[in-house]
C-alpha cells in the first residue's frame, strides 16, 4: 500500500444556483465508486467540514456571485485551492440568477417580499448577506482556471473533466458541454 498515491483533495461550494450542478456530480452514479479512492472531499455541501482547508488541490464553484457571502466564499476558495473550476452556467455566465440584473434591487425586493408575499410582507434584514448590485459570473470576482458550462453540465462532462485532471491532462469541456446544455 505504500506506493498508493495521495488522494487529490477537492473542495466544492454552492453559491447562487439551484444545486443542479452538484446533483449532476452525484449523477456520476457508479463512476463515483471508481473516482472515490483517488479523491478526498475536504469541503462541500455533501460533507460536514466547516472551513476550506488551505492547500486544497481542486476547487469547484457552482453558482453565480450574487451577495457578499458568495463573494467571500469565492475569495476563500481562490485562496485555498490550487486549481479553480467554474462549474455550470450560473458560475460561468450568471445564467438565471443574473436575469435580475436588468432590474434595480428595490424592484426585486418589492416583487419577492411584498407583491408575492402572503403574510407579513417585509424586506429580510437579519441573518442574510447583503445582495450585490449585479449578479456576476465567478471569473469577474476571482481568477478561474477551467470553465465547464452547462445547465447543468452533464454527468459525462463532469466525469470527463475530473478524470482528465486526475490523469494530469488538460480537459476541453466543450467536447461534451456548452452554454445551456
Amino acid at each position: 500500500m505504500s506506493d498508493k498515491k495521495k488522494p487529490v483533495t477537492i473542495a466544492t461550494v454552492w453559491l447562487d444556483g439551484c444545486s443542479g450542478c452538484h446533483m449532476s456530480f452525484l449523477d456520476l452514479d457508479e463512476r463515483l465508486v471508481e473516482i472515490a479512492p483517488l479523491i478526498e472531499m475536504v469541503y462541500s455541501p455533501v460533507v460536514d467540514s466547516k472551513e476550506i482547508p488551505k492547500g486544497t488541490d481542486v476547487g469547484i464553484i457552482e453558482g453565480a456571485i450574487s451577495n457578499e457571502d458568495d463573494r467571500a466564499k469565492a475569495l476563500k476558495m481562490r485562496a485555498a485551492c490550487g486549481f479553480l473550476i467554474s462549474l455550470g452556467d450560473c458560475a460561468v455566465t450568471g445564467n438565471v440568477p443574473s436575469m435580475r440584473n436588468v432590474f434595480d434591487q428595490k424592484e426585486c425586493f418589492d416583487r419577492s417580499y411584498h407583491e408575492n408575499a402572503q403574510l407579513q410582507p417585509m424586506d429580510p434584514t437579519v441573518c442574510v448577506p447583503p445582495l450585490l448590485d449585479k449578479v456576476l459570473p465567478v471569473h469577474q470576482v476571482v481568477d478561474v482556471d477551467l470553465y465547464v458550462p452547462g445547465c447543468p453540465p452533464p454527468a459525462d462532462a463532469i466525469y470527463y473533466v475530473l478524470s482528465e485532471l486526475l490523469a494530469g491532462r488538460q480537459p476541453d469541456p466543450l467536447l461534451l458541454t456548452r452554454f445551456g446544455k
Partner: protein
Amino acid sequence: MARQKLPPTQTLTMKIDDVDVTAKPGQTIKDVARDHDIIIPGLCYLDGLSIWGGCRLCLVEVEGMNKLLASCSTEVAEGMVVHTDSPKLRAYRKVVIEMLFAERNHVCSVCVSNGGCELQDMAVELGVDHVHLPYMDPDVNLDSSNDRFRLDHNRCIMCTRCVRVCGEIEGAFTKGIGGRGIDVRIINDLNMPWGESQTCTSCGKCVHVCPTGALVEKGTAAAEMDKRRAFLPYLTIMREAQR
C-alpha cells in the same frame, strides 16, 4: 468570315490556406472556399439572401493587405493568397462571439432556441467557454403583439437576416433597423408593435432564418423552437427559375 473574339478568361487562380484553387470572377472568398470544402464561420450570411457583412466572423487574412477582410463580401482576384484560419483570426472571432453574448441577455438555459441556436453552436466551434467581457445586462423589451410570433430583443444579434428575408423574399419590407450603435434594434414598420403592422403577412420567414431565439413561434417552451432554414435556398432557386 471573321473569327469571333474569344471571351476573356473565365477562371482565376488563387490560394486559400495553402491550397491552389480556381475561381470565377465575381465570386466571393467565402464561396470559393466553400467550393473547396473550406468552411469559414459566419452568422449574418445565409444562402439565398443578399450579403450583409456585419457579423465579422468570416474575417480572413489576405496577403498584401494590412487589414482583415470579410470573406462573404470580398470578391476574389487573380493571384490572391488567403488564410482563413490563424491564431489571430481565431482570437478575433472568439471576441466577436463574446461581444454578442455580452451585448444582450442570452440566457441559453431558458431560451426557446436552446440546442437549436447558431450562436451557441458557433461558441462551441470557436472554443468560447466563457465571456471575459463584462455583461451589459441591457433592459431591452420583447414584442409579443403578433398573434403567432414573438420578437425577443434579448436574444437578437443584429444579423439582419430577418430584415433581408422580409424585403427580398417575402417583399413585405416590414422588418427594418432602428436606432444606432448600442441602441440599434430590429423594428417593425415605423417602429410600431409587430401586431399592429399593416405590412406583415405573418409568413414566418423571419422566424425561420433567425439564427437565435430572437424570433420564435409563440407557444414554444425552453429548447422547443426548431428552425427550418433549408426552405430558403429552395425558394430562391425556384424564383430564379421563374424569371
